């Protein structure tokens, strides 16, 4: 990634122009286009959006901070269940609220934040003990925590246990979901381009040197973990209210792997790479699904694996490495001389 310094960029409202433009376009699409789209294709678009949020947020931990976490699905499930429990309860207690779809949408935004905060809190719980570990050990511990969260949910009957949680109100609209996609990318982009983000990079590059330069590495790692968990929680909540059914099995380690694959494929430390990879893998998974129905063989994991092997052989740093798409545009807005990491 070429990290931008402020000296060649705007501040305040002026710097938000493109982001606001993106939101406006999304809501225009929401009101004028979304209903026309073929439902199957539409569902792929929606899952792609959820996966973008997941991949981009995991990139903060795995890519920018260099901490290999394998428990992202766990945080996703926390957010999913918190929000789904809240809305299903509300629906039984105050069914009249649900008559006002606008009121409910507003309320859902609040619940999404709550789901994120819940997941972020679990992020602290998981992060504090496990971030003393490095590399493989951390990976295994986070994998374990992800499974613990899942088994924990499996055994709580009020949220459905192994039966799952059905009849979740459909509150994830195209506009709302993609607004969160933009919000996620916006927040994380700005975060990794700030002093906080520099701490993440320092930890990734060399922990001993980072400490010697005054970086509180433990705190930086927990921060990265919490940010990642927060947005995973939001993604989980959006997922729950789109699929309208939750099952602990959905959030097993396969799910975590899928997100990791997106991050690795796109390039650890490249946000736009994560976006591309999330869209690409969501699409290919659906394409493979029809192939699987035809042949009755589960090709998905085979092709996934082959793709990863091929990629690691040809582009060991992922599609974009640590670069962003914008870096490939000649005379792009991110001038080389203003970056923290630049490339020849």
């Amino acid at each position, binding site marked *: 990634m070429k*990290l931008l*310094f*402020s*000296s060649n*960029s*705007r*501040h*305040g409202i002026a*710097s938000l122009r493109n982001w606001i433009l993106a939101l406006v376009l999304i809501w225009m699409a929401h009101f004028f286009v979304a209903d026309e789209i073929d439902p199957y294709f539409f569902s792929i678009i929606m899952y792609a959006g959820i996966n973008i949020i997941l991949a981009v947020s995991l990139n903060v931990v795995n890519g920018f901070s260099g901490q290999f976490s394998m428990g992202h699905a766990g945080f996703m499930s926390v957010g999913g269940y918190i929000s789904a429990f809240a809305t299903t309860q509300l629906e039984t207690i105050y069914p009249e609220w649900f008559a006002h779809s606008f009121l409910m949408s507003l309320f859902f935004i609040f619940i999404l934040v709550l789901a994120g905060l819940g997941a972020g809190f679990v992020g602290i719980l998981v992060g504090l003990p496990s971030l003393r570990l490095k590399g493989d050990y951390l990976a295994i511990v986070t994998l374990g925590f992800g499974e613990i969260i899942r088994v924990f949910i499996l055994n709580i009957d009020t949220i459905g246990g192994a039966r799952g949680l059905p009849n979740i109100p459909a509150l994830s609209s195209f506009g709302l979901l993609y607004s969160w996609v933009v919000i996620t990318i*916006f*927040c994380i982009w*700005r*975060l990794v381009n*700030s*002093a*906080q983000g*520099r*701490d993440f*990079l*320092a930890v990734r*590059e*060399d922990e*001993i*040197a*980072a*400490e*010697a*330069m*005054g*970086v*509180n*590495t433990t705190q930086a790692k927990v921060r990265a973990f919490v940010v990642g968990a927060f947005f995973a929680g939001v993604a989980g909540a959006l997922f729950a209210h789109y699929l309208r059914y939750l099952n602990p099995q959905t959030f097993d380690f396969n799910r975590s792997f899928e997100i990791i694959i997106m991050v690795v494929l796109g390039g650890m430390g490249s946000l736009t790479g994560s976006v591309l990879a999330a869209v690409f893998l969501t699409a290919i998974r659906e394409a493979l699904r029809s192939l699987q129905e035809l042949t009755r063989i589960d090709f998905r994991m085979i092709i996934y694996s082959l793709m990863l092997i091929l990629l690691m052989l040809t582009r060991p740093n992922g599609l974009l490495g*640590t670069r962003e798409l914008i870096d490939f545009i000649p005379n792009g807005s991110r001038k*080389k*001389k*203003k*970056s*923290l*990491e*630049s*490339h020849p």
Partner: protein
Amino acid sequence: MTTLHNETDSLEALEVKNLTIQFGGLKAVSDLNLQVSKGMIFGLIGPNGAGKTTAFNMLTGVYRPNSGKIQAFGKNLVGCRPFQITQFGVARTFQNIRLFKNLTVLGNMMIAMDHHPEQKHFWVLPSLLRTRPMVENEIQQEKNCLELLKIFKLDTRKSEIAKNLPYGDQRRLEIARAMATGAKLLLLDEPAAGMNANETKLLMHSIRLIRDEYQMTILLIEHDMKLVMGICEKIAVLDYGVKIAEGTSSEIQNNPRVIEAYLGKVPTDE
């Protein structure tokens, strides 16, 4: 987060008392005593494996000493984490260079300066909104970094990736980066290693310059005797973890125990 340095008017930048560390059966440093006055360039020399780097590691919180006291600018350092020690005004370079390899020269500097005690801190919201004070602060910070880079003639290479720099530049960048933390005491671990005679000479000038112009205190480990004898006002010699001599360059050069330690004569005592 304003300066904490001026709390005591002690003239000592660093006071080390009876510092000892043991790895298994090996006493890597034993009963080390050092006093480094403010504004001094102090040399720590000794044969390979004498325990010099280990001493630095204890001073900077990487290792915890088994016993002994360390005070820098009147503050106790034993038991503090490395990042805290840096914020107390003590920063270091590494014998085997530890730059943030994949980041640019400026990136390396910015990270260090983010933790300067006088640096303004912005929390998540100003960073997200890019408020005017936050952006102006970044611009100023970048300028300050470039000013430090200029001392080492690295300002023109600010957007180069650290690992692509020539070896000598990497060493110089490490010193600049340590200065960017706002430290007043620099611990330099073999700053001239791998440099040619000309580069070493320039480095000597730079070290003197940062002491004179930036009121730095410098404790350096070095094998290049021309450098050590040329710029160090006081020199301590370590051998097998024990300080065997201390004094000015001429005192050290004529000390029989030092000559022994370096030339490897059969030890006659202990």
